[in-house]
């Protein structure tokens, strides 16, 4: 399955949307316009975008505390996302969830998750349900290098293997689990080294190469759809921002971060260059797309600002079905 030029331009636009959304959120948190704990996806856009490009609305995903990118990549509406972060009643979760619990069941997004490793067991269940119902839907389980050490992750991978559940475990190795570098929190270089331990195929891909992510994901998703079971797909990327907005980042050097923002590493700049080089886009077209995406984000902020807060009478809604 290879990407058409048009599709690549669409995916490039999605990556920009994620980047601009996240940078806007950073600004809003730093100016205390919005509150709560927010964990930005800047630098990892190619992973969510490339993986979600292989999915339909009938497929599921479980996300992490760093979930905005996954949501936008799977078709989430930035207006409704922004309203949720503004804690407005027009938000995806009616202001009840916030950044770490943002979800859209209609898109199969089973939620961002405030618990590291909270998603993998749920992903196995959703995948198993898809199989039980006789569909070829899959569930993508996004998790990080941090979560790869969590007990729930091991349990979920083993169970998925035993059940041959149609899950693709996308391990986003962004080099940091909260404040601790991967080199310090595990003895292996690649999470995928554990795949054999569960009896499942593993693959490693350059997580900042959109096309490579797409192709690897398509293969893993295809395998799952055919009933051949789970795959562990490690996408090597880098977390440009701190663990959360406001993180003083005492644990790493600025020049390390800057290195990953250069044109040969940044996923958006790399795809942009490819699109210009192959004449899929002109510099002028790039400018127009960037402006258009920026406008979308600005409109999302406006929508959120103008939306009402939830009424106190809504406090007890939704505790029980």
């Amino acid at each position, binding site marked *: 399955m290879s990407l058409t030029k048009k599709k690549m331009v669409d995916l490039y636009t999605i990556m920009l949307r994620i980047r601009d959304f996240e940078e806007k959120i950073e600004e809003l948190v730093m100016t205390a316009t919005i509150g709560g704990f927010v964990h930005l996806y800047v630098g990892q856009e190619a992973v969510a975008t490339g993986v979600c490009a292989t999915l339909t609305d009938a497929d599921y995903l479980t996300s992490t505390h760093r979930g905005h990118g996954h949501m936008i990549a799977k078709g989430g509406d930035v207006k409704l996302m922004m309203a949720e972060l503004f804690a407005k009643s027009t938000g995806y979760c009616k202001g009840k969830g916030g950044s770490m619990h943002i979800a859209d069941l209609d898109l199969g997004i089973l939620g961002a998750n405030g618990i590291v490793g909270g998603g993998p067991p749920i992903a196995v269940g959703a995948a198993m349900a898809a199989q039980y119902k006789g569909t070829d839907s899959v569930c993508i389980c996004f998790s990080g290098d941090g979560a790869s050490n969590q007990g729930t992750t091991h349990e979920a991978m083993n169970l998925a293997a035993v059940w041959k559940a149609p899950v693709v475990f996308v391990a986003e190795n962004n080099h940091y689990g909260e404040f601790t570098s991967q080199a310090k929190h595990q003895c292996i270089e690649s999470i995928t080294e554990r795949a054999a331990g569960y009896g499942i195929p593993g693959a490693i891909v350059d997580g900042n190469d959109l096309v490579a992510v797409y192709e690897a994901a398509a293969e893993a998703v295809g395998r799952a759809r055919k009933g051949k079971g789970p795959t562990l797909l490690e996408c090597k990327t880098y977390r440009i921002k701190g663990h959360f907005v406001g993180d003083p980042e005492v644990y790493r050097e600025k020049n390390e971060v800057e290195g990953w923002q250069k044109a040969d590493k940044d996923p958006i700049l790399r795809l942009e260059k490819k699109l210009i080089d192959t004449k899929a886009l002109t510099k002028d077209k790039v400018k127009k797309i960037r402006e258009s995406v920026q406008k979308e984000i600005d409109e999302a902020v406006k929508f959120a600002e103008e939306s009402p807060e939830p009424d106190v009478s809504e406090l007890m809604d939704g505790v029980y*079905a």
Partner: protein
Amino acid sequence: MTSMNMGMAVNNALSLEMERDPNVFLLGEDIGYPGGVLGVTAGLQAKFGEKRVLDTPISESAIIGAAVGAAAAGLRPVAELMFVDFIGVCLDQLFNQAAKMRYMFGGKAKIPMVLRTCCGAGIGAAAQHSQSLEAWFMHIPGLKVVLPSTPYDAKGLLISAIRDDNPVVFLENKVLYQIPGEVPDDSYTVPIGEADIKREGNDVTVVATGQMVMRALAVAEKMAADGVSVEVLDPRSLCPLDEDAILESVKKTHRLVIVHEEVKFAGSGAEIAATVAEKAFDYLDAPILRVAAPFCPVPFSGKLEAEFVPSEEKITDAVKAVMEG
């Protein structure tokens, strides 16, 4: 009508619901081929097949979490946690995920799962296989908590729990698995959140749960001979709790004794006592007493374990104490 013990009643409820609704399936450790560690799910895999009665590896977080995911994706899983004492290794999936997803997602997700598990002391299973932890689950908004005391209640409540669109923690007392009772053969429901007066009386209300209901009834029978009329009220569900039934009973009898197998300190009885003190204070002729397990882990020694589980004697002492005012 058939005489069956609680284990068989649970089995029957599972079988009937699985026949009725193809979305109901079971998962847990050793529930399929071996029929469950205490035999409760015997025969179900043979009847419904391996796709609907799933044996899992020993991975409670994955089991409970898979139930959450499957429920969110439209199925109706009944997961078994072999012993309630194992909840520690998988509690996140129950209390942070299952219980909260609907609320956190603005009312959109639905998690219609049941977590069945066994609780209680009395078979020498010792500290890590004998606890009663109702209060833990009651404390989490979003969960429903059910603790039947008879085979009849167990069957009806489990059917209700499976049909409920919320995550339900279904507690089965392991001593009660062996106690028979009359159960209708067909399908029926017992509403969650509705208490049952197991014995009517006028002098004192004894609110009892699980295995304690039988002991309270035995005490009531004996005390009737002494001219004391004991009303035994079984809440059956602890969350939602049938406050109205409890208050109505206390307003009639003016005396309340609560009996549960949980440790007394911060147990479900504390909630019931506080609620009655708050809402029916003027009706009480005596302080509210709780008869419960002492504040220690469950001992292995049979002699010590018998001391741990509230006895008929201790219940009688409490009833006599409130009668004296």
